[in-house]
């Protein structure tokens, strides 16, 4: 019972805070629409010169990039929310108070990101919805369930990576450049803005080691090409394998970083 009580308290806290910063919220929604509009017109430009690399996606660059954008947003929030939340609590001075209560560090870690991560789903939905309704992106409605399933299977992977990043930050304190590098590698080699096949063969090897590649490929296949489960199941299996390794590893790494920080006195200097 206390599990849900605590989870609810964190969620409510963040919801109320967000609600009380209305301007920021409205600007955020405006930014989403602006980004979609920007890529909509870019896509118009590209669609006039059909690329060979996009034939697999019906030559629809806008649908291709919209999935990439929505997914990047999801990825970004998932990767950063753990470290951002912990840093936020630290800078606010509330981390110490929380740790002095009978609430464990993992409860704090997971509950602190609840709002952000649920909101990430809403945001991704908004990208796809606005793209489809206002800018006429062509997605097949039957693909949404499989796309959601792919995202759900990918969740433990990016949760794991986010927790590892938070643990690293706890250890080294400054990780801005590491975060930028991680996002760059995922977006550049993972096929967010252009098909992976555009890269030289030697660089394409890197993309095989990134979960983003499989996630995005599966989502695009079901949303743009209406492919069934049998077409993407291999990608889902690879994602599941990533998840099985990364999630438990991240908990272990975080626990070690926490114990170390608490012992060497740096826990409250996050």
């Amino acid at each position, binding site marked *: 019972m206390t599990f849900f009580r605590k989870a609810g308290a964190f969620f409510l806290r963040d919801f109320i*805070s967000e609600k009380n910063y209305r301007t920021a919220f409205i600007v955020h929604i405006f930014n989403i629409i602006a980004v979609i509009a920007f890529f909509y017109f870019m896509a118009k430009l590209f669609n006039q010169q059909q690329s060979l690399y996009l034939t697999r996606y019906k030559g629809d660059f806008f649908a291709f990039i919209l999935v990439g954008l929505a997914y990047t947003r999801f990825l970004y929030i998932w990767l950063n929310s753990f470290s951002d939340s912990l840093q936020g609590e630290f800078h606010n*001075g509330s981390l110490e108070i929380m740790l002095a209560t009978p*609430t464990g560090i993992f409860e704090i870690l997971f509950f602190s990101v609840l709002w952000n991560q649920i909101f990430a789903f809403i945001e991704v939905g908004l990208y796809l919805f606005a793209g489809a309704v206002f800018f006429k992106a062509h997605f097949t409605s039957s693909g949404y369930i499989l796309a959601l399933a792919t995202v759900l299977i990918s969740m433990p992977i990016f949760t794991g990576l986010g927790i590892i990043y938070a643990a690293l930050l706890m250890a080294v304190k400054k990780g801005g450049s590491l975060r930028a590098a991680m996002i760059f590698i995922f977006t550049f080699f993972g096929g967010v803005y252009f098909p992976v096949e555009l890269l030289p063969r030697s660089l394409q090897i890197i993309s095989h080691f990134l979960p983003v590649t499989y996630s995005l490929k599966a989502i695009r296949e079901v949303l743009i090409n209406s492919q069934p489960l049998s077409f993407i199941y291999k990608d889902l299996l690879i994602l599941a394998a990533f998840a099985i390794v990364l999630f438990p590893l991240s908990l272990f790494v975080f626990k070690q970083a926490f114990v170390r920080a*608490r012992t060497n006195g740096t826990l409250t200097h996050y």
Partner: protein
Amino acid sequence: MVQEGEVFGLLGPNGAGKTTLIKMLTLLLSPSEGEAEINGFNLKAEGQIKRSIGLIYPGERSFYPRLTARQNLGFFAALHNLSFKLARKKIDELLELVGLKNMADIWFEEYSSGMKQRLAIARGLLNDPKIIFMDEPTKGLDPLEAHRFRKFIKDFLVKKQKKTVFIATHQLDEAQELCTSIAIMHLGEIKLCAKLEDLTGTNGNTLYDVFLEAIGEKNT
């Protein structure tokens, strides 16, 4: 040894290690060596210790600015495992106690320093702790608020509620007014620990003299 129901003062110059010691006793840091017992529990018994302690920091930080006082307390009450019903009752009582009941539903960021500190006290008492740790609790308060705060510790927390208060401060007058026992820390070590009356009652020594001697600054 800190006696039950007393105000114990931890004194020391800046950088002496007072805050570090408080963080160790409240389980925010692990000691590199040595042992301690809180309320009869070894430091390894985290659950029992956390249920019996309260922590009061200077109140400017550590709350959420765009939550009301009531919402802030509601959040921390959940972290203390208080049920929704019990939390509501407790929060009402505490807001009344610290004189914030009429301002319970305005945002924390609109509070004055004194009000913030009173809210920090209310939060520190949410779980009805036996032992309350305070780190520089009157820092940033004007003399009147600081006086009110010290009176609250003496008259309510200690006399009425029989709480044990462990307070870190470098204000000697505060220690003199509040504490029954003190320890003086310097460079990470406890240099002296005794009843206040035993230290200042003989030879006409003031607490200031004792303090200087303990930290090796008597002749400078």
